[in-house]
C-alpha cells in the first residue's frame, strides 16, 4: 500500500511539475536574486506599503536595532523572513488550487481515466494519493525553497550589516532559529488541512463537471445567494473566506494576531481543538466520499 501510494504521489508530481517544482523554483531564484541585489546595493523595492531597501537602515534604525531586546530581535528576523517567503507560498497556493481543479478533469479530458481504472488501484486509493499530495507532500516541497531563500537573505543581510557596521554578525545569526524550519512545515500542514474543504471541492468539480471552473464556482455562488435571500446570513461565504486565508487569522481561531509573525507550535494545537477545524475535516471527508463515488461511476467509455 505504501509503495503504491508513493508511486502514485510521485506520478502526480511528475505530471504537475510546473506547478510544484518549476514555478516555486523560478520564484525562489528570482527572489534570491532580488534580495541579494537589494542588500548588495544594486536595487530597492519601495511601495506605499512595502519598503525593502538599504536606505531604511539609517542612523536611527541602526540605533534601534542595536538596542532592541534579544526576543524582539528574533521576532523581527522571523517577520522579515516570513514576508520574503510569501511569494513562494502564494505560488504554491495557486499551484495547489489549479492542481485540485484539473487533476480529475484532465484524466477525463484525455481519456487516460480508462487506463488508470484498468489498473488494480481503487478509486479511494487514487483520491487519497491526491489528497495526501496536497496536505502532506507539497508543504514539504516548499521547505527547500524557503530554506534557500532564508539563507540567501541571511547571508546577504549579514554582509550588508557587518560591512556597514550596522549590527554584528551575531546579532542576525543569533536570532535565526533553525527549528523554525519545522515550525513552518507544521504550519503549512495545518494550513493545508484548514483549506482542505476548498481543495477537495475543486477536485469534486473536476470529477463531475463538464466545465470544471463553472462547476467549482456556480454551486457555491448559488448557495451563498440562496442563504442570503432565505436566511439573511453569510455562513457559506464566511466559511469560504476563512478557508482561503491563513488559519491563524480565521475568525474562529481563539488567538488574535495583530502583526505579521510566524505562528507558535502551540497555536497548531489550538487549531486542532477548535470546532471550525473539525467541521472542515468532516466536510472534506464527505466531499472525498463524493469524489470516490462519482469517479467510480465515471465510465467514460463508449457504449457498444
Amino acid at each position: 500500500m505504501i509503495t503504491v501510494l508513493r508511486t502514485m504521489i510521485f506520478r502526480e508530481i511528475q505530471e504537475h511539475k510546473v506547478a510544484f517544482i518549476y514555478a516555486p523554483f523560478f520564484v525562489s531564484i528570482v527572489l534570491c536574486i532580488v534580495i541579494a541585489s537589494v542588500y548588495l546595493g544594486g536595487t530597492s523595492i519601495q511601495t506605499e506599503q512595502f519598503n525593502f531597501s538599504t536606505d531604511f537602515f539609517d542612523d536611527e534604525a541602526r540605533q534601534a536595532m542595536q538596542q532592541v531586546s534579544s526576543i524582539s530581535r528574533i521576532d523581527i528576523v522571523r517577520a522579515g523572513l516570513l514576508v520574503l517567503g510569501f511569494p513562494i507560498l502564494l505560488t504554491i497556493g495557486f499551484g495547489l488550487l489549479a492542481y485540485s481543479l484539473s487533476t480529475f478533469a484532465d484524466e477525463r479530458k484525455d481519456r487516460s481515466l480508462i487506463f488508470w481504472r484498468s489498473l488494480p488501484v481503487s478509486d479511494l486509493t487514487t483520491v487519497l494519493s491526491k489528497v495526501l499530495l496536497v496536505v502532506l507532500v507539497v508543504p514539504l516541497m516548499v521547505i527547500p525553497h524557503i530554506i534557500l531563500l532564508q539563507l540567501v537573505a541571511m547571508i546577504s543581510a549579514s554582509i550588508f550589516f557587518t560591512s556597514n557596521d550596522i549590527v554584528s554578525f551575531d546579532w542576525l545569526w543569533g536570532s535565526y532559529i533553525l527549528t523554525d524550519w519545522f515550525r513552518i512545515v507544521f504550519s503549512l500542514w495545518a494550513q493545508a488541512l484548514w483549506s482542505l474543504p476548498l481543495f477537495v471541492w475543486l477536485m469534486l468539480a473536476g470529477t463531475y463537471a463538464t466545465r470544471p471552473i463553472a462547476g467549482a464556482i456556480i454551486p457555491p455562488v448559488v448557495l451563498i445567494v440562496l442563504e442570503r435571500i432565505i436566511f439573511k446570513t453569510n455562513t457559506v461565504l464566511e466559511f469560504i473566506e476563512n478557508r482561503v486565508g491563513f488559519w491563524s487569522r480565521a475568525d474562529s481561531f481563539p488567538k488574535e494576531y495583530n502583526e505579521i509573525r510566524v505562528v507558535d507550535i502551540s497555536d497548531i494545537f489550538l487549531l486542532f481543538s477548535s470546532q471550525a477545524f473539525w467541521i472542515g475535516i468532516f466536510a472534506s471527508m464527505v466531499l472525498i466520499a463524493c469524489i470516490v463515488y462519482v469517479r467510480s461511476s465515471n465510465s467514460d467509455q463508449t457504449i457498444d
Partner: protein
Amino acid sequence: MSSEVVINASNIRKLYDGSYALDGIDLEVRQGQITGLIGPNGAGKSTFLQCVLGLIRTEGNLEVLGLDPRKERHKLLKEVCSITDVAVLPKWMTVNQLLQYMNGVHPGFNLEKCISILSRTNIKQTSKIKVLSRGMVVQLHLSIVMAIDAKILVLDEPTLGLDLVYRKDFYSQLIEDYYEGDKTILISTHQVEEIEGVLSDAVFMNQGRIVMKDSIESINKRFLELRPHQSNLDQARSLNPIHERMELGREVMLFEDVDSQKLSELGDVRPPFIADLFMAIMESSQKGGQE
C-alpha cells in the same frame, strides 16, 4: 471440458436510456479459452466487457475468478488485464515513467519482461507518449499488458483505427506472448477475419443478446459451406441450407448439421469463415423474425 470456470455470467442486464444494452446475457468462460465477442455496433460487446472489468453496474449475477467485479474491482484487476480502448495512455508521460509507474502499482507487472518486449519494437523508453504514433501507443499498451502475469486478458476493439501492418503485428505479438494454455482471453473486434485463427470460442451478439455461442471446433463440425456445381443446385437446396448468398457469381450455401460426405458430392465444401457465419445467422434470424 474440465477446466475451471473463470467468468460466470447469468441473466446480465444493463439498462441505458430506457433500452437494454445487455438483455439477459448468460455466458460461461473457462480457463484457457480465447473467446471472441462478435456483433455489430450496439450489440452490447463493450458493455459486457465493461461489466467483466467492474466498470459499470448491472443486474444479474456475474463472477469473474470467483469475485464480484463491481465490489472487488481493484482486487480483480490484479488478475485481469485489459485494453478497452486505443490511445488512452497518459500522453504527458514518457515510456519509462509509465513503466516505473506500472512497476510500482501493479503487483503482477514484470518490468524486465516489458523492457524485453519493447526492445523488439521501435519505441524508445525516453520518448513521450504524445510523440508516439497511434500504432506505437497500442504496441506499448500491449507490451505492458503482456508483461503482467494475469489470468484473464480483456481486449475491446484493441486494434481500432490501426492500419493493417499494426493490426497484424498486434495479433502476432498477442499469439506469441500470451497464447499459453492457462490464460484466458476475451476479445471483441469488428475485424473478425483477423482473429478467427486465434479463437477457441465464438459468441455472437446482437441487440444485447447472445445469438449463438460455441467452440470453433464445434462450429467447424456443425456448419459447412458448400459451393455447389451448377447442375447440383436443386439437390443442394433440397438439403435445406440455412443461408444462401452469391459470391463471384457462384451460389454459396451454409448448412447446419448436414453430413459433409453428402455435401462434398454436390460441390466444394469447407468450414465457413466466422464473419460469414455471423452474417448468415443474423440474416436468417432476421428473416425468421419477419416471418
